[in-house]
């Protein structure tokens, strides 16, 4: 019997190590292919200067800033809404209505991003243009609004799962002590579900940073440094998609590895800070 256990154990270990190695391998691959570009020009310049290929300048600063603006803004918009929705589903209306909304949210996760992009172009972009009477409406704010819709379902599901995973013995104990629903939520459910909520935020941020289509379709794709949420911007992912579509051998193309490496590290830094914040909690 013990001998039989070894085979599934080896299979599972291989799968786990395989995933970890693949993730690490991608990092090494991107770092390796970035070396020629980083050697040819100053690393700091690549990360901070604007993208002016006509002048031989391949900085990805505007794209880094664009990615950060759009993803952080979308997370700021999506997090409270997702949190409220999760509370509604699991605490306020855990019965039929809550289940209905849960199914609705599950269905939302399956909608392709391009559909959200279309909705953004025909609904959000004109709305922003008419509201602020500035530019084409294809800007950071429009992209962040649509992106918050894209990342919300995942966050809602993770938040609600973490809320429901709080053991009933804790909640019944505080109910028996006379806790009001608000006290129960703030003093027991929230501290117990905190790690799951953090995971939801990390995944939401990762999804926002990594999304390509929304930014490509709605953010305007300007290669200037964005200074305002109503400015157009280009994200790293959109930049990779746009340059790859036109070229695959020039210096412009080679800088994409630096873009990919930056994206990778940006997500890692986000996860690191979120985890550090979680540990301090």
């Amino acid at each position, binding site marked *: 019997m013990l001998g039989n256990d070894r085979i599934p154990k080896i299979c599972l270990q291989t799968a786990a190590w395989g995933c970890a190695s693949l993730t690490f391998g991608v990092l090494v691959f991107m770092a390796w292919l970035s070396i020629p570009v980083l050697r040819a020009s100053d690393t700091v310049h690549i990360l901070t200067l604007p993208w002016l290929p006509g002048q031989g300048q391949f900085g990805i600063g505007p794209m880094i800033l664009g990615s950060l603006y759009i993803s952080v803004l979308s997370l700021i918009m999506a997090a409270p809404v997702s949190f409220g929705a999760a509370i509604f589903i699991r605490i306020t209306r855990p019965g039929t209505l809550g289940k209905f909304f849960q199914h609705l949210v599950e269905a939302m996760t399956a909608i392709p991003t391009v559909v959200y992009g279309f909705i953004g172009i025909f609904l959000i972009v004109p709305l922003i243009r008419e509201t602020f009477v500035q530019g084409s409406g294809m800007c950071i704010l429009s992209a962040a609004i649509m992106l918050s819709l894209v990342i919300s379902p995942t966050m809602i599901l993770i938040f609600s799962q973490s809320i429901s995973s709080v053991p009933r013995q*804790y909640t019944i104990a505080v109910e028996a002590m006379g806790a009001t629903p608000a006290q129960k939520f703030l003093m027991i459910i929230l501290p117990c579900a905190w790690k799951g909520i953090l995971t939801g935020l990390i995944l939401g941020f990762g999804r926002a940073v990594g999304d390509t289509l929304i930014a490509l379709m709605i953010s305007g794709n300007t290669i200037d440094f964005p200074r305002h949420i109503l400015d157009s911007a280009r994200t790293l992912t959109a930049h990779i998609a746009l340059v790859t579509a036109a070229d695959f051998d020039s210096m412009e193309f080679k800088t994409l590895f630096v873009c990919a490496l930056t994206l990778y590290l940006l997500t890692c830094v986000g996860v690191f800070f979120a985890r550090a914040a979680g540990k301090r909690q």
Partner: protein
Amino acid sequence: MKKTKIKVQDLNFFYGPHHILNKINLDIPAGTITAVSGPSGQGKSSLLTALNRLWENIDGARATGRIWIDFGKGLEEISKKEYNVHHLRQKVGMVFQMPNPLPMSILKNMQFPLKLAGISKNMVPEKIETALQQAHLWEEVKDRLSSDAQMLSGGQLQRLCIARSLVIQPEVLLLDEPTASLDPASVEKIEQLLLELKSRCTIVMVSHYMDQIRRIADRNLLLSNGNLSLVTTKEQ
């Protein structure tokens, strides 16, 4: 003749389609230990949850009928919808069959009900020490109050849960098979504790153990097929 502390009139309890308690009428005298016994699934725990309206937090549960409790100003009808249920539960403590410490330190477990009740911070250390002493736990934990409560043994955990209920000085204590999962030494400590407590609060306890009921209960009520009958009193 002792004053009536709890009065139950025509209490029906339903769990989904099942009619669990059938028109229960009951008077519980103040300062006594009332044991409720009977076969499993007959509604003993449901009767307890009717007394602090905890059934309202249980999916599918429903109760009808009237319940009064005397909190010092005469009998008040606590089954009325408008009666403040949070205030009620601070006056009617409850201890469950399985010890259910919160995932925090011993001290924070004890502070929790005081925080809920909005009791002044100055009073907290004194109240915590008194409650832990009443539960015969003070000597065992006084040097490690900041340790995780989950590190305590089963008997200590149950005494911690009792102390946590006592810290806000409830007038009624409901215990749902409080010694079911404990070793004989812990059972003895808890029985001793309950005998000491009954002068301060009225105790209603679900128990399967007839020996225990004989040792500590003033009255034994038998719940069978949804009907309640008085089996014995201490005087008998």
